[in-house]
């Protein structure tokens, strides 16, 4: 299944659309919309009753927060719900191509941009690392550059972990940020860091890095591909792990 998410931010507004149909089917389903967030060490679920239009759930800015995620399910999917772990409630949103919830952001009296917000359950049950170049989707000429990093983790915890900007050529950590699990984290990237040799890297938790840049009220919003998307051969994970190992070595070297 997939979870869906939004962004709560004082500079941008956000709207999330979750369809009640699969992309290859005309059939509508009568599912409910739920929000879920970590609260005192447990997952708290709430049903949202007033977000439905004919074929979508439309979740407005006031319903969105950075620790809340959304999913669609039938009431019966939640019968054996255990609030100590995030669960795979159903497989309805497991589709090819991936189930698309439209996450649109906009700035007041300015531009707007959309991205496919989906976070597969399989990613939430794994530890791992994020590796992404930053200059493919950021822009030195922009007024502002941000990376939003969404993590969803199976345990209802808010745990801090490190996010690094690493200059791969110089084998050097150039900036370290503290971000947290089960949260939409926001970091502003200084223009001086936007360089082809600089990569964003985490070593403890997975997540989706989404890049935003704004200029003259025009806005761009897109995620980078995870490295294994570039390799279609069977040895893709071996190759990716080999590269990630080098980034881990740079961090270890800095710590020693």
């Amino acid at each position, binding site marked *: 299944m997939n979870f869906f998410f939004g962004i709560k931010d004082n500079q941008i507004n956000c709207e999330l659309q979750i*369809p009640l149909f699969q992309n290859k089917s005309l059939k509508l389903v009568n599912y409910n919309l739920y929000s879920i967030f970590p609260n005192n060490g447990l997952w708290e679920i709430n049903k949202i009753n007033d977000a439905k239009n004919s074929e979508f759930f439309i979740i407005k800015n006031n319903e969105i927060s950075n620790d809340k995620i959304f999913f669609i399910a039938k009431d019966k999917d939640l019968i054996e719900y255990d609030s100590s772990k995030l669960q795979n409630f159903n497989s309805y949103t497991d589709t090819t191509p991936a189930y698309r919830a439209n996450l649109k952001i906009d700035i007041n009296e300015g531009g707007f941009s*959309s991205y*496919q917000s989906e976070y597969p359950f399989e990613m939430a049950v794994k530890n791992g690392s994020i590796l992404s170049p930053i200059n493919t989707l950021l822009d030195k000429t922009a007024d502002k550059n941000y990376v939003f990093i969404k993590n969803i983790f199976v345990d209802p915890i808010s745990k801090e972990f490190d996010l690094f900007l690493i200059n791969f050529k110089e084998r050097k950590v150039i900036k370290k940020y503290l971000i947290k699990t089960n949260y939409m984290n926001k970091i502003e990237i200084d223009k001086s860091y936007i360089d082809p040799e600089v990569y964003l890297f985490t070593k403890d938790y997975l997540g989706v890095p989404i890049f935003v840049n*704004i200029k003259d009220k025009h806005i761009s919003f897109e995620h980078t591909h995870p*490295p294994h998307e570039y390799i*279609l051969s069977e040895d893709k994970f071996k190759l990716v792990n080999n590269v990630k190992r080098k980034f881990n070595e740079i961090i270890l070297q800095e710590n020693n």
Partner: protein
Amino acid sequence: MKLYYKKIINSDFGIRIRNTLNISPVDMLTSELHSASVSDAFVWRTDNNFSTKIRFIDILNFFFEKEETTANILFYDNNFNYLKKLSFTKLKKLNEVIINKEFFGNKEGYGTFYIFHDLKNNEVQKELISNRCYVGFSKNDQHFSYVHGNLLARYNSSNNKNEIQSDIIKTSLIMNQNYKIQKYFNKNFNNEIFLTNPTSRIINFKIKRNSYSLKEGCSLIIDLKQDDIINIKSNCLFFRPIVFSYNSEYFDVHHG
């Protein structure tokens, strides 16, 4: 006998029959590819004061530590007429190309491009790679808004005398496939979809009551008028458009 049967049902014609009868349909097949550089069907446009920016990383350097790597980008117009080739003899970590009217000798229009890394000359013949790239669009010289590659289409096999092949994405004999875009279109905005035929076969498709046809490699931009939900009925099993939405001087671009 069993092997012979398997060979038939997994042949291109067998897959088209399966897709027609909806028996274990196949939308995309990369498992049969070996030693090739695969490209998405990326789109460019210079119509209506648009310009397009391509950004891609040197994946042979990043994953295989190859130096002075080479790649080609092939450009086609909307009728799949070959326009030009850009050859990179020494890729940078991040490579950037701006496509505007001047790039094509003052041509206003739209079409597709494909990027192929040179595996043979870079001594990574056995690999199967795909540069998913990021494509930015700017209107009236304003800020670029980016979208990633989303439609694997053509490949250049290192064993096959550099001949470019297609049909990674599969078709059926009749228009029995739906692709319903998982976005609730705002009727107050102007919306367009940009469709590309990623196959070597004719794609016939219908949106509402309008019928269209796209020959091999051709592309088409369709104005959506006053529709909030769009279903594309076709004979292609992975027919995902790029969406452009306009509001005043601002626009949004994303995959559908």
